[in-house]
């Protein structure tokens, strides 16, 4: 298993609402997991715990079988890359230099990236289709392009797993699909992938497993086609939702009711 959690518990304040309750999940090579859940349920919190950005109250996160509490930040980062939600940094680094930062786990504290690192960045930019933008300031490209640059930054670390925090948020339809296609191709390359999303359709399209995090902090995990059922979606989102099979796209689609 690449990512494994054991009885993860988390709350932001002592005695406050328990965000995560006894969370067990595991993910191997080439597997994808979509985490669904209502606003504020704690999907990002769960990702942050796995990425060791937050310390769980109890429980263990293991990466490649190793307890993360005994791992240095660099060891964690060389197994696991994190694609956070879009944000604009304070300084306008070029797309190339921004992506280059993903090589950090391979660079020593008093070192700089070398030719080898530059070559990996060039290749990844080519792969993701950003070569033309590489000298543009990261702050001046569109949201979709920024998302792709962040994915490229995650890839250049050559990790085993990539976490995506709402990768489709704030993107238009075209860019949402582009991002999902990239995620699918990463899965096929063997990365273990976890994404959080508000859209059940995205979980259906990605296949793999789906996990639903409810307000009590419990996680229900299973195969996407089994977990995503009308009754369960109704409970999660508190509204009528219909799952209809569409022959044109050959998959189930999640449709909200009329207003």
């Amino acid at each position, binding site marked *: 298993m690449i990512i494994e959690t054991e009885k993860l518990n988390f709350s932001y304040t002592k005695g406050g609402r328990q965000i995560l309750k006894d969370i067990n999940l595991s993910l191997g090579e080439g597997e994808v997991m979509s985490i669904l859940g209502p606003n504020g349920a704690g999907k990002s919190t769960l990702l942050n715990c796995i990425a060791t950005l937050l310390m769980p109250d109890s429980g263990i996160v293991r990466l490649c079988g190793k307890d993360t509490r005994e791992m240095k930040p660099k060891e964690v980062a060389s197994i696991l890359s994190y694609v956070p939600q879009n944000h604009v*940094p304070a300084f306008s680094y*070029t797309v190339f230099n921004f992506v280059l930062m993903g090589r950090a786990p391979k660079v020593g504290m008093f070192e700089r990236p070398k030719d080898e690192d530059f*070559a990996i960045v060039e290749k990844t930019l080519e792969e993701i289709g950003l070569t033309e933008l*590489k000298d543009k300031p990261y702050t001046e490209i569109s949201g979709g392009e920024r998302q792709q640059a962040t994915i490229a930054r995650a890839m250049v670390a050559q990790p085993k797993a990539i976490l995506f925090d709402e990768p489709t948020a704030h993107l238009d339809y075209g860019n949402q699909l582009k991002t999902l296609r990239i995620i699918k191709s990463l899965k096929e390359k063997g990365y273990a992938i976890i994404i959080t999303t508000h859209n059940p359709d995205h979980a259906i399209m990605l296949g793999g497993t789906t996990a639903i995090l409810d307000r009590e902090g419990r996680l229900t995990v299973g195969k996407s086609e089994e977990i995503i059922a009308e009754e369960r979606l109704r409970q999660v989102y508190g509204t009528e939702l219909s799952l209809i099979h569409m022959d044109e796209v050959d998959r189930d689609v999640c449709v909200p009711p009329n207003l």
Partner: protein
Amino acid sequence: MATNSKKNFYAVGFDLLLLAILAGCIVMALCSGKYPITPKESLDVLFGELFHKGGSYSEMTKNVVMGLRIPRITASILCGVMLAMSGVAYQSIFKNPLISPDFLGVSNGACIGAAIAILMGLGGIYLSGFAFLGGILAVSITVLIPTILKSESNIMLVLSGVIVGGAMSSILGFIKYVADPETELAAITYWTMGSFSYVTMSEIKSVILTMVIPMIILFGMSWWLDILSMGESEAKSLGANIKLIRNVAIACATLMTASSVCISGTIGWIGLVIPHFARMCVGPNNTKLIPTAGLMGGIFLLLVDTITRTISMAEMPVSILTGLIGAPFYAVLLYRQRKTIS
């Protein structure tokens, strides 16, 4: 890759150009002042004394160049370099282009240390030592407040700097209030406005190590400052040992600022304006930014000091001019960058 190395080439070329400008400014500064010296004479003395060759210049010329002007020029360049570089470092550490060494209370703290030394009738090495302790103490409190409040956010640190800076200037006001107006007050005021009038070579020697060593460390880890400037959680998820990198960087930048306060008093604006200007010229990468900003800071402060000591009979404190030039210049920079600073 071609474009990348080409860019490095431009950045190095730009730094060489700045170095040439700095050399020109040094010669100009050697010749400016009440005692007239020609550029050729000044260079004769400089090389003659540096390499112990001697030469055909008068004793008076030698004393003016080696005893008065060279220490001042060295001190002003060093302080400019230190303030600009530590400004770059602080701005990256706190991912905030609007911050400067003054903001974190370092300059004020060092100033209080110096003022206390003056009140106690101490001078010389004690003055520098007290200034140094004050600066370190101030930044420690600034860094400590967010830790006590269990908040690791950078905004909290900035606010904490405002708190410490505010408290420090009140304490300084109180020290001025109780100081003897005949003797101590003038000395303290002079220190708070910054000046190179009384700089000696031995003073420079006493702080040169605490200037150069942190500078080398900071430059060595400059790529990691880029990562730090992405924000705490991003830097951590990229594999940075934030606590270590941040503490080392803060310690280095603070040593550099405090060392410069030790020999010149507080000089405002350089740590804020020069990093901005350098960033507009070579971009935000700290690896390029730190040397470029350092050179620009050195040139700027040397020019300002040369102007203040030649413009009138009575010498003006440097901070008056850095403020007069820095403030409007900063307004122009902000206007040009208004789109990128939200």
